[in-house]
């Protein structure tokens, strides 16, 4: 059962990765190129020798990007299927498609949107190489805290479910999540390593493209996995006449 879900999750993630790669090629790469051009121009102005290219730009933007996004997509789909395997049947009477869509929405918010409000994606030329360890640490702390807060919020909503009703319980839990986020955002240090004269337009478009890539991944996984999981869980759920899920 879990193995079947896992395999399907990774395959859906792979498909999501292919679509996200196409999106990244069209909307992300132009921004990466502009940022690298800026970086080279800065290095030249400072009289530094150009960095040796270990991997050509064409490789980085082609097979390299595809590898990164596809591996990430497959891993995301696999992890998503494991969370689904736990959540299914534990989120009220929600069917497989509904469970999958809801998990993807909450996951996208907790893993991507909220952490990126604190530590957004940065193009090349932004970021001091000496602080990479520090920035990576903060980035993963932010994600971990955000996921923990989301899990707690879902638990809170379930606890208040019978007393307040589904709608109000969800609003209260959502507000609790926002309060935690506001506190954590204030507590963790800010990072701003954008060079003085870096184009604001390129930075904005890069970050929107980065969020768009994640949106493609999570939307395809959330909607696609529900459809394939339905067949797997149906055999177990329906011990009587066929019935449509809510």
């Amino acid at each position, binding site marked *: 059962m879990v193995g079947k879900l*896992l395999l399907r999750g990774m395959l859906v993630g792979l498909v999501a990765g292919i679509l996200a790669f196409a999106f990244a090629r069209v909307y992300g790469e132009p921004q*990466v190129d502009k940022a690298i051009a800026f970086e080279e121009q800065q290095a030249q102005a400072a009289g530094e020798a150009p960095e040796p290219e270990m991997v050509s730009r064409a490789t980085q933007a082609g097979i*390299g990007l595809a590898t*990164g*996004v596809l591996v*990430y997509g497959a891993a995301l789909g696999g992890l998503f299927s494991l969370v689904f395997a736990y959540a299914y049947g534990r989120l009220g009477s929600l069917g497989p498609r509904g469970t999958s869509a809801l998990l993807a929405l909450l996951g996208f918010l907790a893993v991507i949107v909220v952490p990126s409000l604190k530590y957004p*994606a940065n193009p090349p030329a932004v970021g001091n190489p000496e602080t990479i360890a520090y920035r990576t640490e903060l980035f993963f702390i932010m994600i971990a805290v955000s996921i923990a807060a989301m899990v707690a919020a879902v638990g809170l909503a379930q606890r208040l479910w019978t007393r307040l009703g589904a709608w109000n319980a969800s609003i209260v839990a959502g507000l609790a999540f926002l309060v935690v986020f506001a506190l954590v955002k204030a507590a963790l240090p800010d990072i701003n390593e954008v060079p003085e004269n870096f184009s604001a337009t390129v930075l904005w478009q890069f970050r929107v493209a980065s969020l768009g*890539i994640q949106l493609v991944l999570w939307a395809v996984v959330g909607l696609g996995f529900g459809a394939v999981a339905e067949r797997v869980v149906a055999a177990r759920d329906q011990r009587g006449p066929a019935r449509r*899920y809510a």
Partner: protein
Amino acid sequence: MSDTTFAPSYGPVAIPVRELLPWAIFAGLMLMLMIYFVGAEEGATSLIRGTMVHEFVHDGRHLLGFPCH
């Protein structure tokens, strides 16, 4: 006589944690290792010498939102 026999519920059935746990641990670790190689290897920490992995997945790392360099 209980009426459950005549009106069984066909709602979603949860997978027992005992069945799920081994998958979650082993597959979960492997999958997170995959994300680690795309997102962080040869950046903040390094399991393999050099910077080839970093350079190869460079664009993906930036665009997926990981701190890169």
